[in-house]
């Protein structure tokens, strides 16, 4: 479904990604792991068209999307739930959800999709007329996920959904993500929360210093000596 081939990406004059390649197949749950500054968010922003790709190509469902602008990437069905949630704080929960469904297809199904989102996250229905900025961290993350679902995504890109959440909420959000994946939405997730993510995902890639260091299934990586030492502290 998504094929990233040998991309180089730079911020201003500093090159961040070096020949990064990976693939996400339809229906999969793929994780990108790595420490701070490894280039995880940069990779996602390159896919979403917010950053220009210097070399290499990105292909989505057989179409080359390397050079197309960000707002068109979303239209193809790649929906990015950004790091830090990035809600519209002074708009209501409902309005935030509506902003997720601006394309004709998503817009025509706005009501039904919203109902589904409320089934996933009942708290959002309860708070639908509150401003998004007044929600708690966990609720905001749910809203960010819900807003992503409103676009009827083919590929849902999640950037550190567990960031800044209490452990019990992390567990709940991860369960929500697994449900979403089980319903047929392909998920590409970036995480620092290594153990829980590896337990849940189908496959994972580990980035180090802007390069793909190692890849494999969740179980393979959990048993890998380097991963154990560097990320799990065992």
């Amino acid at each position, binding site marked *: 479904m998504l094929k990233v081939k040998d991309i180089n990406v730079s911020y201003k004059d500093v090159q961040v990604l070096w020949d990064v390649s990976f693939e996400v197949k339809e229906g999969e749950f793929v994780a990108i792991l790595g420490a701070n500054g490894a280039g995880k968010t940069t990779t996602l922003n390159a896919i979403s068209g917010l950053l220009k790709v210097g070399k290499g190509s990105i292909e989505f469902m057989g179409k080359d999307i390397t050079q197309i602008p960000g*707002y068109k990437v979303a239209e193809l069905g790649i929906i990015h739930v950004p790091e830090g949630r990035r809600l*519209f*704080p002074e708009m209501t929960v409902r309005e935030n959800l*509506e*902003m997720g469904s601006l394309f004709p297809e998503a817009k025509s199904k706005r009501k039904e999709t919203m109902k589904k989102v409320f089934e996933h996250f009942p708290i959002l229905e309860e708070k639908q007329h509150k401003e998004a900025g007044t929600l708690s961290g966990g609720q905001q993350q749910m809203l960010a996920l819900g807003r992503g679902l409103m676009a009827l995504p083919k590929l849902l890109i999640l950037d550190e959904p567990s960031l800044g959440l209490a452990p019990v909420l992390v567990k709940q959000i991860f369960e929500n993500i697994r449900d979403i994946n089980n319903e047929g939405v392909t998920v590409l997730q970036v995480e620092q929360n290594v153990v829980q993510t590896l337990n849940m995902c189908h496959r994972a890639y580990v980035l180090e210093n802007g390069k793909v260091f190692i890849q494999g299934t969740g179980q393979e990586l959990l048993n890998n000596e380097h991963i154990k030492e560097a990320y799990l502290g065992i």
Partner: protein
Amino acid sequence: MLLGQTIICGLLLGGMYALIAIGMTLIMGVMKIINLAHGALVMVGMYVTYVCSKNYGIDPYIGMFIAMPVLFLLGCLIQKYMINRLVEVDSILPENQVLLTVGIMLVLTEAARLMFKSDYRSVTTSYSSDTVFLGAMSISVPLLIGFFIAMVFTLLLHLFLTKTDIGKSIRATSQDRDAAVYMGINSSKITMITFGIGAALAAAGGSLLLPLFYLFPDVGHLFTAKSFIITILGGMGSTMGAAVGGLILGLSESLGATYINMGYKDVVGLVIFILVLLFLPGGFRSLVKR
């Protein structure tokens, strides 16, 4: 009686100031820059309405519906071909976009001077000097009509921003531009439309004030200053704040003109401006939030 009349006239005038300032606020919210050419856009709008009235005998309140689309287009073009070009270059600081708006202001002002000379002009209509009486208070008809139309536009804009997808996209873009792009919002298109709407509101406000103010190429500076004061009063980027700020500025100018001195009416606004910056830097919006 004098006090009542002063207050009412001030509020009526303030409603029209508010319309101009809301345009500036809207642009500031989305672009994160202060558009120092805003007053010049008001001035251009006034000249369009003036020409319609003088050359074709079109009533200013109808002429404004010609001036608004013209200015909408002008605003879109300025945004698309001038300001957006600076946004695309990473190495240019936002401050330089502000400098660009100063340049645009100078060009518009001098172009108006070339075409119309520096003469003071005014539009007179059959009802320009009509007044209605409210008890013992007399209120000028152009003030009343202007205020009424300004309030209708403010309400329409409010509905547009809260009920339509484009309006909501404008608010979303002003709250978090990158997140808006993630949602598939074409942010450069939205900024263009926003600049257009801001310019059209400037034209509307200018046209409404045309029967009350003298028109000359430098009149824009006056309106840039007023909208700037109002925007600070209301809290940057807040539409409701700008509406309230406009009313307060109109009111204080009117009180100052009546009870201090006609010549000091602009000073009153500036004093309030400084006091707000010193003691309430977030504007009136910060009072509501707490």
